[in-house]
């Protein structure tokens, strides 16, 4: 028999970017919260500017447990899925927010109303065939107060482009109206990024700095970014990155109402005869535990949220928890981050001490910010040129067809060009489709012998057309800035394992097509909530974390407000 802990009001499964945020409003409201985290506490002394360790060997997030939990991947249901590549999920208090790029965007208003806006502007025939996209059950304005809260409690730097309808072209004029300015100014630009911004302006576009969960000045006792160049896949050695283990989790611990249990590997959610959840089973080493709670919040990675539900079958839920309508694992999307464009310039870019969140964005070609009447797709992408370079990566740069990638000729090339190439990051609208799904793999198992997630998904025509269109725009921008070579990546095909994984427990009013309701609680098990990008029904053209965090805060606040009704 597992050891039984004393009952909590709320147990949160996963103390990462989403769970680490939700804990704060709950603990402040006086609820007794237990956070179960599969990893341990790390701190700034664990992070070194060592490219071999961080980027080549992917420490610290490549550990045996997460690697054995890598989803399998296949394009379509006729193939056999296999585990390929690494897994960016990190087990630690703070989770993947420790090593992420920390780009902290709000979604644009269009992303919440893709169906109704497309129908209104272009007609219903423009929704791609086979897509299961729906409007969100809430709009941007309803989420705005939670974006605002999280930007302050986590600590986000950036430049507002729309404060209560007043546009400011130093920020993004396409963003939804916000209550106020960011709590900190944006990360600085290098001379090269200034040059890219000038080139965007001469094309008639509006360049602006992107928002980041990275301090740019002392904020709540943590220092500003020191620009040492090892932010990408590294934790911050000065705590300037606003990962939840240095922001909302310590604040929640200060209330005395949060207990974090590290190394707790959750195996299943327990369900009673009435179909209500009663707590979480977990193991630490060989010891089994049960953490009873009045409410359970699942806050793992998208793949792990779905897996936990599918693994937690019971008499009330024979096909997996909250899956009596067959919706768990559906409406899956991985952000179309591929189809990149890189460029070679005839001068040094001085990018050695940058970070991926330090860059210049253009939103003219994102979402529905441009007229699609005569274009064969809906949606678009955000263009992002950033400053991020380390020596091994630089020495492995493309030679742009100018010669071999080794030997004396290469040495001559690299001596001149190691600091002259730049990649862009073009995040594009990805839609959910009927046959893009997550389920349990029939053969691959994790370290406990439990099946891992199987991804069956590919990009469709809408995504590939956006990708080609955005590559043209990106090339135009690079050429304007003086690039002498431009190289394009392939348009993409299979959706592999990614940091931007959406859906699987989609949020919506209709229980026939969604797992959780408008507040993030299960349509079937009313005291089970789900946090993270797995509840998001559209991807937008930007990084998901801030939206996942704003939704988490909102779900937690709703739990506080409706405690009697939800906890029973």
């Amino acid at each position, binding site marked *: 028999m597992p050891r039984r802990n004393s009952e909590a009001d709320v147990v949160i499964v996963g103390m990462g970017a989403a769970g680490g945020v939700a804990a704060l409003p709950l603990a402040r409201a006086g609820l007794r919260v237990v956070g179960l985290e599969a990893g341990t506490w790390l701190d700034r002394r664990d992070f070194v500017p060592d490219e071999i360790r961080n980027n080549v*060997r992917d420490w610290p997030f490549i550990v045996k447990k997460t690697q054995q939990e890598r989803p399998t991947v296949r394009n379509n249901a006729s193939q056999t899925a296999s585990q390929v590549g690494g897994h960016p999920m990190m087990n630690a208090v703070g989770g993947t927010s420790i090593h992420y790029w920390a780009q902290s965007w709000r979604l644009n208003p269009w992303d919440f109303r893709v169906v109704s806006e497309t129908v209104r502007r272009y007609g219903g025939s423009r929704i791609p065939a086979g897509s299961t996209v729906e409007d969100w059950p809430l709009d941007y304005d309803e989420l705005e107060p939670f974006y605002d809260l999280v930007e302050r409690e986590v600590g986000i730097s950036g430049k507002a482009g729309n404060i209560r309808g007043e546009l400011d072209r130093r920020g993004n004029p396409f963003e939804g109206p916000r209550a106020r300015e960011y709590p900190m100014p944006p990360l600085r630009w290098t001379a090269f990024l200034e040059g890219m911004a000038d080139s965007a302006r001469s094309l008639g576009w509006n360049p602006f700095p992107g928002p980041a969960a990275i301090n740019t000045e002392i904020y709540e006792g943590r220092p500003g970014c020191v620009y*040492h160049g090892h932010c990408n896949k590294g934790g911050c050695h000065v705590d300037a990155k606003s990962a939840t283990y240095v922001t909302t989790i310590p604040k929640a611990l200060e209330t005395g109402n949060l207990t974090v249990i590290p190394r707790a590997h959750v195996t299943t959610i327990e369900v009673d005869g009435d179909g209500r959840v009663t707590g979480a089973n977990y193991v630490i080493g060989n010891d089994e535990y049960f953490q009873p709670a009045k409410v359970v919040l699942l806050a793992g990675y998208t793949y792990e949220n779905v897996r936990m539900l599918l693994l937690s079958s019971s008499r009330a839920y024979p096909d997996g928890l909250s899956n009596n309508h067959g919706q768990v694992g559906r409406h899956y999307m991985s952000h179309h981050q591929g189809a990149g464009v890189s460029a070679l310039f005839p001068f040094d870019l*001085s990018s050695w001490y940058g970070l991926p969140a330090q860059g210049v964005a253009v939103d003219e070609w994102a979402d529905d910010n441009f007229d699609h009447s005569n274009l064969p797709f809906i949606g678009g992408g955000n263009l992002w040129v950033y400053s991020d370079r380390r020596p091994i990566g*630089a*020495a492995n740069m493309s030679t742009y067809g100018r010669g071999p990638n080794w030997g004396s000729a290469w040495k001559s090339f690299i001596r001149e060009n190691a600091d002259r190439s730049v990649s862009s990051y073009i995040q594009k609208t990805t839609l959910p489709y009927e046959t893009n799904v997550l389920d349990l793999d029939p053969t691959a198992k994790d370290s406990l012998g439990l099946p891992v997630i199987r991804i069956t998904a590919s990009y469709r025509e809408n995504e590939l057309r956006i990708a080609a269109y955005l590559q043209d725009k990106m090339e135009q921008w690079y050429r304007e800035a003086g690039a002498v070579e431009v190289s394009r990546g392939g348009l993409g095909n299979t959706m592999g394992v990614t940091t931007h994984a959406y859906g699987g427990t989609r949020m919506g009013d209709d229980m026939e097509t969604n797992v959780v309701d408008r507040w993030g609680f299960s349509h079937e098990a009313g005291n089970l909530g789900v946090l993270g990008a797995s509840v998001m029904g559209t991807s937008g053209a930007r990084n998901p974390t801030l939206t996942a965090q704003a939704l988490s805060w909102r779900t937690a606040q709703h739990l506080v407000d409706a405690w009697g009704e939800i906890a029973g």
Partner: protein
Amino acid sequence: MADDKSEKKISKISRRELLRSAGLAGAAAFLPAGVHGLAEGEGEILPDEISTATAKQASRSALPQNLTAEETEILDAMVARLIPDDEHGPGAREAGAVGYIDRELGGALSSSREAYRAGLLALDRYSEYSREARFVALTEKDQDSVLFDLQTGGATGAGAGFLGSSAAFFNMVRGHTWEATFGDPIYGGNKDFVGWDLIRYPGPRSAVSPDDQRRLEQGELEPLRRSAYD
């Protein structure tokens, strides 16, 4: 896994050395003054794999540990062609790439040990078949043409014994040679900072101020020749 010998070495080296090679004290030392609040060695050291890496770091020696003398000789000739010593400065041999690969094959790269054994011998066999001499005995020009055959996969089907394609072997060695040459010198490569000098990397810094960045942009930032762990 650490073998018995290295376990013994671990017990003899100081905690400072252990932390240093694991990168933990290195991170602490790296903190700018004023931010460093905790004493060195405090806090949890968690991931298990660190002790293995440490053991290997601690047991450095001049003799090959994981490659045979013959394998070492072939690998040495190969890396010297991948990044040659020439008018643009020293190359991968001078950077210590062979020592790096040899050591790491007993640690972080241990899963590649068999591919090295098979690949290096296959390279030599392919060289004898196609150029009628051992790889190390060929002229630089012929060595380059053999390596070109490997890179394009052209040497795969010759019965030389590559595990998989010759291109996969070539790319593996190239990748590790680049790690060795351009990585932090704490790992034993990038000797005398030859890799960082080649690409004009100005070295690891704890912080880069707006003035530092301006100096970098004006070509006036003095390179720091140091390890991040110094």
